[in-house]
């Protein structure tokens, strides 16, 4: 489903080159549920943006559903659904129902299929009570469920979520998690999400990718992740330990000047 081969993205900021992501390689098979962890500014969002065709990688190659997201952006867009936890992809002033109608037009979803799918998503995500409410008046939990529904109206084979549980209360979080798990097991939709919430990882992800300083720091199952720090049983503590001592996880020692900070002149 996803093939990332030594992808990197650098930005030039006031004459300095900053490497947000470098030499990142991983593979995600169809039907997987992958969690992507990493400290703030580690390059998770940049990676998501390269997978979804928002940003072009400055090095390396990535394919999603067999297509290059930079060259075939619109073809990739039809195959994937994207949710940004921090920012809605819906239209602020329009009722949720109208936002869905615009999404239908953009993805050219057939009217009958759309009605069927929207009915199903409305029931599963409990959207019935606020379909007529403008998006700006929705609570964060309602908005997030609306965003998830919008990303799934065209029935994508891959769903990418950037921090989908950020800021949600425990009940909303549980609802979102239950929905994503069912989506993965029942429909077979591949799910990739980034998160800072280890609860997401423990309850949902069979596989964890840890990104630190723009590099792959760990790639394996949740149990393997736990085993990297002997004596620790709580995932929260294991992850904290890894963030603080992440250089120990590197597959090769850093070259001079390559350690933190990630900026090079």
């Amino acid at each position: 489903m996803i093939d990332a081969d030594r992808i990197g993205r650098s930005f030039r900021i006031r004459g300095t080159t900053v490497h947000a992501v470098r030499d990142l390689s991983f593979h995600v098979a169809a039907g997987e549920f992958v969690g992507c962890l990493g400290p703030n500014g580690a390059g998770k969002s940049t990676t998501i943006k390269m997978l979804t065709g928002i940003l072009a990688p400055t090095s390396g190659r990535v394919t999603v559903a067999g297509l290059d997201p930079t060259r075939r952006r619109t073809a990739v867009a039809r195959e994937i659904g994207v949710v940004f936890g921090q920012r809605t992809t819906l239209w602020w002033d329009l009722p949720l129902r109208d936002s869905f109608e615009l999404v239908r037009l953009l993805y050219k979803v057939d009217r009958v299929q759309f009605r069927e799918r929207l009915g199903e998503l409305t029931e599963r995500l409990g959207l019935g009570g606020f379909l007529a409410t403008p998006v700006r008046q929705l609570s964060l939990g309602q908005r997030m469920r609306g965003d998830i529904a919008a990303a799934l109206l065209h029935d994508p084979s891959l769903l990418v979520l950037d921090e989908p549980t950020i800021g949600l209360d425990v009940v909303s979080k549980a609802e979102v998690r239950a929905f994503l798990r069912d989506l993965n097991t029942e429909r077979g939709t591949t799910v990739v999400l980034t998160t800072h919430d280890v609860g997401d990882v423990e309850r949902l992800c069979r596989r964890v990718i840890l990104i630190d300083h723009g590099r792959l720091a760990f790639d394996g199952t949740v149990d393997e992740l736990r085993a990297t720090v002997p004596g620790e049983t709580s995932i929260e503590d294991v992850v904290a330990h890894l963030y603080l001592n992440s250089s120990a996880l590197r597959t090769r020692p850093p070259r001079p000047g390559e350690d933190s900070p990630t900026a090079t002149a």
Partner: protein
Amino acid sequence: MRVYLLLIWTWTRAAARYPASFALMTVAGTVTAALEVAVIWVVFSNTTTLGGFDLSEVMFLYGTSGLAFAAADLLFSNTDRISQHIKAGTLDAMLIRPVGTFVQVAADRFTPNRAGRALQAAIVLGVALARLDVPASRAWMIPVMVVCGIVIFTSIWALSGALQFLLTDAPEVANAFTYGGATLTQYPLTVYGADLVRGVTYVLPLAFVNWQPGLYVLGRADPMGLPYALRFLSPVAAATLAVVAVFAWRAGVRRYRSTGS
């Protein structure tokens, strides 16, 4: 194109839920445009010609340029909001959709408010044509020049949008070329200096919106003495500028850096 029409129709229906606001904006737009025509009347109450052209001919040039500009303004000028979309992060949401970014930005929050301007320009053009008595053998050029004008103005908007990918903080720079270009072509180019006319003929092809094809329709020799063949080259100029605009827009999207998180 079909997606674009469906999108603007959906936004029009959304805008129709606030009919008072919609009506006020349309009236305001039409009044502003009417004042521009009043300016022409004021000028001709003091003189009989402007740059060697009489009132009907000036109205013809004003009407064709105004119609082309108003149509492009109505349909595509939302693209000058691209820098706002970049800053607010809404461009990210557009990039995940399977539709071109230009179409999405142009259709986003579309309102038909500016239709009043197009109507006003069409009326001026109608009055001018009634007074001019253009022979049918030359009148075919009129729809051609309006379509070319729409393409030229739309391309200028796309180019200024592409520029905003580089200069996110200076969207006003682009307005000099869009609204400035519209004002420039409202009058016979003979009122401007020869260097400016050469510039809008060979560099930014505003002279092909209404000036060169207009000379043909009016049956006038070029007061600047430029080649006769130029008056038939509006489609070539429009197509060339459109191709440049498409590449510039694509390059802009490719250079896009997105915002944090």
